């Protein structure tokens, strides 16, 4: 009268799989999440720069200086830069993988995308956070009105 334990049928031994980060999955998710943010960020950017007021006619150094005097637009533009550039670079990576069949060409293009993305991210962030709205090399009449206090 012993209780018998019957092994579950067809359960073969499976070696524990090594857990790796599924980068394609996270890239896929990134495109959707960043896309959602970019819809708001870019339509806001387009409205303020191309629609409201005098539209594209109003854009000059003083216009940019006026925007970046406000931390709100600095953060806005930083988010837009980072999210859009990585979104675009990842999209171009997909396109490259689809059409560039020769391994050397493919690796070269992917490398170019990576390098240009890193360079432009660093450049863009430096420009936003080292920006001087009242530079000393300015020709008269190009500075925003609030520089007269200097």
């Amino acid at each position, binding site marked *: 009268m012993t209780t018998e334990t019957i092994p579950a049928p067809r359960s073969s031994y499976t070696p524990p799989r090594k857990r790796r980060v599924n980068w394609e999955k996270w890239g896929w998710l990134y495109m*959707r999440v960043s*896309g*959602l943010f*970019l*819809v708001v960020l*870019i*339509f806001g950017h*387009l409205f303020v720069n*191309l*629609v409201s007021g*005098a*539209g*594209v*006619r*109003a*854009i*000059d*150094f*003083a*216009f*940019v*200086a006026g925007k970046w005097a406000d931390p709100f637009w600095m953060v806005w533009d930083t988010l837009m*830069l980072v999210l*859009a*550039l990585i979104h*675009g*670079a990842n*999209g*171009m990576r997909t*396109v490259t993988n689809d059409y560039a069949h020769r391994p050397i060409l493919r690796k070269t293009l992917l490398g170019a995308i990576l390098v*240009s993305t890193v360079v*432009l991210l660093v*450049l*863009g962030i*430096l*420009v936003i956070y*080292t*920006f001087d709205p009242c*530079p000393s*090399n*300015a*020709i008269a009449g*190009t*500075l925003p009105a609030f520089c007269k206090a200097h």
Partner: protein
Amino acid sequence: MPENSAGTLAPPPAAKPKIKPPRRFAGTLYRGREGMWSWVLHRITGIAIYFFLLVHILDTSIVRISPQAYNGVINEYKTPLMGLGELALVIAIGFHALNGLRIILIDFWSVGARHQRLMFVIVILLWIVLVAGFAPRQIMNIILEAQGHGSA
């Protein structure tokens, strides 16, 4: 009634089976029709926007050189040709954004894939509304700039 009982067992009178003529290929989510053309447009607009973004980061970076250098470059954006380029850019961004939202709904909304065709029609309609709203504004700004009315 022998014929009656036999009739119930016999196969129904031979009606000619209706064979429908082959229909036009109706497509799948990704092959043919809305699914494929939305993908094609999404890819073309995406690549175009990407190359504009590269240039736009570089031209904006000129604010760091000097105000006059930046103003010189940005004045190029106010010429009629570039004004139409901005219109084309907004048209591309409009489709990419709206179809991007459709893709998100296909992937995350439980019945999204079922309604992808209807959502494509909605994308096109909203796109037309968006462009119809922006184009007159942009063309007005191009004309005013060409007539010498600056930022005012």
